[in-house]
């Protein structure tokens, strides 16, 4: 035993000496270096090591680098008191010239449940990164193809065309218009490629071809979009508006710029036509303002008499798609100026000047389907619409004011049967930011009803019956929310 042990000692002695040397040189190096600041994992804990005399700028950079702003390090170094750290569960100790600050990493309760594991490991995509639904918030769009013309559109039918690939035995078309179904739209072989006809209303669509089981983007289409993380699809707009500028045939370049593209001056390049310039665009329903930019010169559309004032004392041309809604404000006949302002025009208060009538003020304004907030600016003072019973007050109202709430083209009516003794029933959901007092339902026979406009996709909602939140008893679809109660679920299809 002793011989064995002694042998082991001799074996480890050189290693120990080497270790001592390493410590010695590390110590020297440590003194020569700037104060340490590290963030690591040690003994199952978050482990922060910071020089006692770390400079404020270095500390700020360190916190920014590792997203540590919320743990109170700045206060700790300012006051040298660890109260705030301790309140958040951190321990700290001083070792020589270093503070060691640590906290155990806790276990997520979600592991062991497949849904919990997906949620734990998700990468929190933004709304923009999610695959968007057709026309959902898309204001405008145009097509750009190479080697072939944009797909022909006739009487609302779009002819999708895949050039070449004539050796494939079968080709399918899949896209947002058929829920990416992989077997519902077979393409037909022609002498130059494959075609499929699809009836589509104006808007934005995403598509891909599947040739012999293999997914392919449209190589002849410049427009493609990533769904957030690596999945690329081709994009096609079914257009509904043709912009034309007659003349200016000697100009080098002409662009279209408007409220729909946030007035970017050189994005929408117009194409030469026989008589001048043109561009076919998809525009969402509503009111849009625009101008042309010809060789750097801004101008309103000379062929369009509809104009609105702009901030430069000039005018923008106006195009209206859809039905006009007449905003009316009764009274205030002594006022000098009344301006309409709302979520539909980005709350601008220098654009929509209302016209005075005998009994008040009026302005027709075209809005696409949707839910909007608005107010009137009467001689510099904000007022809500006294005739509109829908008032929203739970939103992000920077002015501390309420806004009127307008629903254009409701596409769904919520119904709650019974509750005949209830005095007040409110509809509340993600479509009105869960406001608890805006959408008061009306009694029709034995049913409380309220029509709203719902965008495409999933919506959550509840009813509030005399102050009590309830799910929709007639809707079998509901899910638990983060508060442990339930929300009813509705999906709006295209």
């Amino acid at each position: 035993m002793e011989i064995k042990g002694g042998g082991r000692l001799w074996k480890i002695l050189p290693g120990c000496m080497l270790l001592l040397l390493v410590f010695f040189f590390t110590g020297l190096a440590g003194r020569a270096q700037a104060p340490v600041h590290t963030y690591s994992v040690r003994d199952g804990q978050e482990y922060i090591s910071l020089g006692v005399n770390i400079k404020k700028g270095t500390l700020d950079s360190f916190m920014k680098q590792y997203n540590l702003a919320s743990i109170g390090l700045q206060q700790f170094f300012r006051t040298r008191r660890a109260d705030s750290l301790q309140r958040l569960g951190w321990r700290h100790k001083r070792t020589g010239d270093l503070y060691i600050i640590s906290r155990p990493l806790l276990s997520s309760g979600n592991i062991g449940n497949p849904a919990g594991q997906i949620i734990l490991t998700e990468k929190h995509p933004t709304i923009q990164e999610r695959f968007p639904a057709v026309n959902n918030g898309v204001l405008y769009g145009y097509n750009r193809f190479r080697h072939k013309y944009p797909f022909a559109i006739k009487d609302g039918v779009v002819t999708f065309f895949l050039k070449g690939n004539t050796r494939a035995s079968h080709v399918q078309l899949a896209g947002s218009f058929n829920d990416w179904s992989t077997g519902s739209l077979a393409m037909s072989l022609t002498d130059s490629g494959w075609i499929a006809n699809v009836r589509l209303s104006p808007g934005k669509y995403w598509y891909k071809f599947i040739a012999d089981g293999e997914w392919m983007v449209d190589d002849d289409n410049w427009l493609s979009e990533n769904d957030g993380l690596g999945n690329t699809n081709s994009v096609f707009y079914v257009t509904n508006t043709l912009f034309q500028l007659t003349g200016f045939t000697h100009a080098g370049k002409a662009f279209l710029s408007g409220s729909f593209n946030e007035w970017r001056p050189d994005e929408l390049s117009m194409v030469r036509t026989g008589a001048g310039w043109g561009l076919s665009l998809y525009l969402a329903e509503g009111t849009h303002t625009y101008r042309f930019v010809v060789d750097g010169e801004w101008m309103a559309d000379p062929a369009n008499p509809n104009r609105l004032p702009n901030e430069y004392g000039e005018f923008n041309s106006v195009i209206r798609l859809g039905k006009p809604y007449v905003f009316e404000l009764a009274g205030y006949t002594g006022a000098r100026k009344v301006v309409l302002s709302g979520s539909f025009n980005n709350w601008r208060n220098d654009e929509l000047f209302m016209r005075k009538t005998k009994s008040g003020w009026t302005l027709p304004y075209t809005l696409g389907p949707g839910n909007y907030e608005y107010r009137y600016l009467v001689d510099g003072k904000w007022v809500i619409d006294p005739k509109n019973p829908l008032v929203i007050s739970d939103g992000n109202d920077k002015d501390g004011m309420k806004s009127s709430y307008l629903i254009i083209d409701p596409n769904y009516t919520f119904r709650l049967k019974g509750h005949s003794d209830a005095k007040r029933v409110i509809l509340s959901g993600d479509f009105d930011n869960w406001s608890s007092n805006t959408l008061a339902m009306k009694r029709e026979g034995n049913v409380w009803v309220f029509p709203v406009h719902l965008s495409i996709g999933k919506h959550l909602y509840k009813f509030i019956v005399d102050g009590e939140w309830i799910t929709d008893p007639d809707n079998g679809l509901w899910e638990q929310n983060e508060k442990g109660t339930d929300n009813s679920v509705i999906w709006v299809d295209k």
Partner: protein
Amino acid sequence: MLLPGRFVSCLSLFLLIAAAGGHSKGMPSSAQDNQPGMFPVRSDPVVAMDTPTCVIPFTRAGNLILIQAKADTSVGNFVLDTGAPGLVLNMTYFRNYPTRYTEGEEGGITGAVAGQIGTMVDQLSMGPVHYYHCEADRINLGHIESIKGVKILGLLGVSLFKRFEMVIDYEKNIITLHLIENKEAASYKGEQLRDTSAYHEFPIDVVDQKIIVHTEMAGKKLLFLVDFGAESNVLDSRLPNKIFENVTITSRVQVAGSGTTKIAAMYGNLKNMKMGNLDLGVMPVLITNLERMCYSYNHCLDGMLGFDFLSMHKIGFNFVKHKMYIWK
């Protein structure tokens, strides 16, 4: 047309785990099934295919693989989720199905889904693959579909694929499936696997309906769950310090804890991990406490391989021979 000769009556879960026990050191698999209060012995569905091999195109919601499938009369998106034990249905759309069994909280780490309510689907079809009499867990998947913005009917978990060779090609967005018959169980290799120089081959364990691979790092053997439902790779924060000498922390992050709570976790880049002789390079990892990831008799998982790793190469599995293939 269904090919009668290709009907395969699957073995019970009892037998699956008994077979898997051979790959998991020291695990008394048969005893595990009989633990009171853990999970009931379930029968596997009958599987049939219209053709022996098929290609199923998939779409993606973020990093999740969506397969169009039909559960009885409901058609829609199902997520390929090897972090799930078997078929899991979204309670929202299958609430009215009769309840066949319920699971307690403790069931979660043993293969069944914690807190779920079981039911039965008469027929589940994805393309030409059909399952009959398929037992399913039901849970709330509402949060995931709200985040992803797509309707999700359910999850397709490990037990549905255990008679298959499966090759997943993220680049082409297709999954190739071959139902392995008993007579070809020992020898079958699909067309894509003929050129053995094109891929690496690794053994896997299939235990408690989890796919587990063995890796090695800093002289320590590590067990990783292969989870197509995980967007990030995950590393257990409780591993020895020498493991974390190979991890560069990049950021602190808040992740979902229990209920509405958030807990701290960290993102980092891990290096020097090997699977067999293959150096896995630099891998982004989410570092969190995985104490609830333990399963059968103190076996614990050290991490998870998710989309960040799995999507880098074409990847295949033979769940009969317990092999994983990673293309070069």
